[in-house]
């Protein structure tokens, strides 16, 4: 029978989310969701631009930018988008809506729903104290499921013995 390793479940993973763009927030949740589905204790720490992913009024509006992103190709081609073109008004919104559709086709949930799924599975979400102070945020600005605002030292204690992924 498969080794479900219920008792040896002391593996812990910390994901540091430092970017608040759609693609990197999604990457964090794909990995986090996979981790927690394997019985791994999961902590996600949001810092700097990654805070957008847990600021309640912003988290439904994450974007992906084609500017300075040579890996983003004109759809259906191998041609990267020239920065001059990518910088035109509306291009970020266009790229974001394209990516949103592509994700949806693969049944990847929108960001808030994805975060809720991972929260329901038992993950912990932490906000970075320094960024929180720098942006002048209040508790009510954060998404409900965020456990707390913690310092860099708190994070060091929390991540004791954990594997860490920095995104």
């Amino acid at each position, binding site marked *: *029978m498969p*080794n479900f390793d219920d008792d040896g479940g002391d593996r812990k993973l910390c994901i540091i989310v430092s970017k608040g763009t759609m693609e990197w927030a999604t990457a964090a949740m794909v990995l986090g969701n*996979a981790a927690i589905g394997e*019985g791994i204790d999961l902590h996600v720490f949001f810092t700097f631009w990654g805070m957008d992913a847990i600021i309640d009024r912003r988290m439904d509006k994450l974007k992906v930018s084609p500017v300075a992103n040579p890996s983003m190709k004109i759809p259906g081609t191998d041609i990267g988008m020239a920065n001059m073109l990518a910088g035109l008004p509306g291009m970020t919104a266009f790229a974001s809506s394209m990516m949103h559709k592509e994700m949806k086709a693969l049944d990847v949930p929108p960001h808030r729903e*994805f975060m809720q799924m991972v929260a*329901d*599975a038992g993950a912990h979400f932490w906000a970075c104290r320094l960024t929180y102070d720098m942006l002048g945020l209040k508790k009510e600005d954060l998404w409900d499921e965020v456990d707390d605002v913690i310092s860099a030292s708190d994070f060091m204690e929390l991540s004791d013995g954990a594997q860490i992924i920095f995104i």
Partner: protein
Amino acid sequence: MATELIGGVELDVDEEGFMTNPGQWTEELAPALGKEIGIDELTEEHWKVIHFLRSDYEAQGETATLRRVSTLAGVPTKDLYKLFPKKPAKKMSYVSGLQKPTGCV
């Protein structure tokens, strides 16, 4: 190919122990598979998931992911983690006589 004797039936299994021939699975077998992985009793909620997985497999040819079970069978994520603790995707597939899901989400 490896085989394993579970519930009095000789089953084809892969190296991880998942059944490789979904046709060998029967409803009578599910409780025995559950016991193998520490689920002592299959409740109505377990059966809801198992029945969905079996019928979805018939239609799609692959095992549904947790996301698919929660959205299409209407079993909330929280409940899936309670019914099949720690590794719900693998455990629900195992009890249903299917391979673990290959999808990422």
